[in-house]
């Protein structure tokens, strides 16, 4: 509370850059009165409304769920909506676009390479039983323990903060990066999935986890508490065991039996028929 009371004015230093109009980026400084509970995103919105109407950034949900507002704030990749001014410990807020990506404009990074790598690693359930995948007849059974093996990795919101913090991704664009690798592990670790062999065609090559130095910055900056560094080490272990033919092959989860002896309560309608 002491820090909040001491803040009366916030100085925003914002990196502005329009590749179509500017040869190089420049820093702009604006001052705003501090208001209680102000986040970096609140400040940017206030600036856009008042003194910098052309300022560009991405944001949507304002509650750390959509992953749109990843920015480089005071030397660290963070979500602007999730970052209180008071937690920065200073009234000077330096905002730049996420590093390791090209800049489209001002605070808008070009995340296409990240999503290309994400897509290449097939971040979805892959199974052989196409009929069941197309027209499901039930739910695949999964124990609480099996769920825990990938649950934390499924909290990823693809904001790109881990990619911006990764020292390997900074120098080697062929490296897939922490987010796509973590999502690939999330599905490899899912007992409903049978796509390890398909994903291995990418993972076993140059784009795989081999360049990771375990710097751990990805895990430190993740706003959702995901641990990509752990996922990458677990993935390395799986791939080594696979090469040595020691990886435990598992059958993908079967359809769980419907609970017996349970009667639908009156007034609860049947689920709608599948639309695909």
């Amino acid at each position, binding site marked *: 509370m002491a820090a909040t009371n001491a803040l009366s004015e916030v100085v925003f230093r914002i990196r502005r850059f329009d590749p179509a109009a500017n040869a190089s980026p420049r820093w702009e400084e604006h001052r705003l009165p501090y208001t209680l509970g102000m986040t970096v995103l609140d400040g940017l919105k206030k600036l856009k409304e008042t003194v910098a109407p052309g300022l560009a950034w991405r944001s949507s949900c304002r509650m750390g769920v959509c992953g749109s507002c990843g920015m480089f704030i005071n030397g660290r990749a963070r979500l602007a909506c999730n970052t209180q001014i008071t937690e920065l410990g200073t009234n000077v807020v330096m905002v730049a676009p996420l590093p390791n990506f090209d800049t489209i404009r001002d605070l808008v990074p070009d995340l296409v390479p990240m999503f290309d790598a994400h897509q290449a690693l097939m971040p979805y359930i892959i199974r052989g039983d196409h009929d069941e995948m197309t027209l499901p007849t039930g739910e695949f059974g999964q124990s609480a323990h099996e769920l825990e093996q990938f649950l934390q990795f499924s909290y990823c919101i693809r904001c790109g903060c881990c990619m911006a913090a990764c020292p*390997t991704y900074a*120098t*080697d*664009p062929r490296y897939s990066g922490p987010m796509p690798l973590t999502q690939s592990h999330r599905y490899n670790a899912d007992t409903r999935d049978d796509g390890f062999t398909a994903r*291995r065609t990418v*993972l*076993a*090559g*140059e784009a*795989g986890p*081999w*360049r990771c130095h375990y710097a751990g910055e990805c895990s430190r900056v993740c706003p959702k508490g995901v641990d990509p560094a752990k996922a990458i080490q677990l993935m*390395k272990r799986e*791939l*080594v065991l*696979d*090469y*040595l033919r020691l990886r435990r092959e598992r059958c993908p989860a079967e359809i769980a039996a419907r609970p017996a002896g349970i009667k639908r309560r009156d007034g609860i309608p049947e689920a709608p028929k599948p639309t695909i």
Partner: protein
Amino acid sequence: MRDQRLWTWHVGAGVVILVFLGLHMAIMHIDTVLGLFNRPGTEAIDWSNVVDRAKSAFFMVTYVMLLGAALFHGLYGLRNILFELNPGAGLKKGLSVLLTVVGVGLFGLGTWAAWASFGLTRAL
């Protein structure tokens, strides 16, 4: 597939180094406490102990294995560092070939040295 194979060998070489460097430490540096490998009352680098090890087939094999593991582990690590400078595809291939040639050459030289000292000391 190639990177998966190289990484697995890198990890395997690390394990070999760990075992044989442990053996090296035990023989050369802490045997005064252990008293297992060298003649009583002598130092590990005394001529008699050096000859004993050189004419032992077990040590000859471990020298060669340690050499091979250390060369692969070190040169693969160096290759990774160089690749992080983001060279072009041609330069990458050239570096891989160069490091392989250097590794095989040094391994051949070291193996010859271990074999030669094995033969010489057996003849003493």
